[in-house]
């Protein structure tokens, strides 16, 4: 019992420090163009890497995952809101899985 909480403590501290240090230590605007550009590109690369191909394994079958992915891409690209993209992706997965 106590041992588990020790694990939880270690996990929480390590994870929080990773999140905390840059945000509290970098308090000025970075002037270096390279670092600035790198940080500008980070979200696009990191999130794209995380979405694909993991999205195919997120649902009950790769087919519903793929269709959900394509539909989300189309709606996101045409400017649908965050909420709507998420909702439409869920609905398409739900519907596709009725038929397979």
């Amino acid at each position, binding site marked *: 019992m106590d041992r*588990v909480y020790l*694990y*939880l403590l*270690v*996990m*929480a501290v*390590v*994870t929080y420090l*990773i*999140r*905390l*240090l*840059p*945000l*509290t230590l970098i*308090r*000025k*605007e*970075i002037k270096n163009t390279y670092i*600035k*550009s*790198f*940080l*500008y*590109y*980070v*979200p*696009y*690369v*990191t999130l*794209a*890497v*995380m*979405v*694909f*191909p*993991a*999205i195919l394994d*997120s*649902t009950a079958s790769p087919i519903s*995952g793929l269709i*959900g992915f394509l539909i*989300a*891409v189309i*709606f*996101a*690209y045409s400017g*649908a*809101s*965050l*909420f709507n*993209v*998420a*909702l*439409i*992706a*869920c609905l398409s*997965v*739900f519907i596709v*899985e009725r038929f397979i």
Partner: protein
Amino acid sequence: MMGNLAAWKKGVIDGIPIGLGYLSVSFSFGIIAATAGLHIIEAVMMSATNFTSAGQFAGVTLIASSALLMEMALTQFIINSRYFLMSAALSQKMDPKTSMVHRIIMAFGITDEVFGVSVAVKGKLNPYYTYGVMSVALPGWTLGTFLGAYSGDLLPPSIVSALSIALYGMLLAVILPPAKGNNILSALIIISMVGSWLFSQVPYLQNISSGVKIILLTFIIAGIAAALFPVKGEARNG
């Protein structure tokens, strides 16, 4: 930058799909945690204090195998090191005058999705926007864990499956709109996805954990892009 209350409300609205997505992911997490022998309270405590998916899944596995604490620390560091880059990116998204207290609270909420929507707001980031997102996302994450650990068969599998794609859908809604009409960003996103797919297919690369893969690809792709296509001034900051 809008008023604090308006920013908070906007955050709550954007937080709803995140909260729903978290509910289904943490529901699965709760089931796995209970199966691995964790008490409901322990599973809920883990979600409330860690607020991260991959790290917690790995954590449960390590606890079940009675790993060393050092091993646990190292694993969490590797899996979650992407938050380091996200936190650094957010530091540039905020008004430099943002107080230490705001930074300390916001840091706790940096998950892939909360970061994604926060970094995508127009102009400088108001911390209250992120608080709004967190105030839906964190309860969703914790509640889902409780429900999953308490009763694994509360939600039908078809609903869990459908909800599981919500988070990916919203991440796409974060990265794709700015890429519209921007060839560099569009190419970057496609290259990132293809690169990520290669890591899942090619022998040897397959064995690399997802945390390491994310960090490696981010450093390589964003690093090369920054050298080839430097971003000048504030123009692209929003």
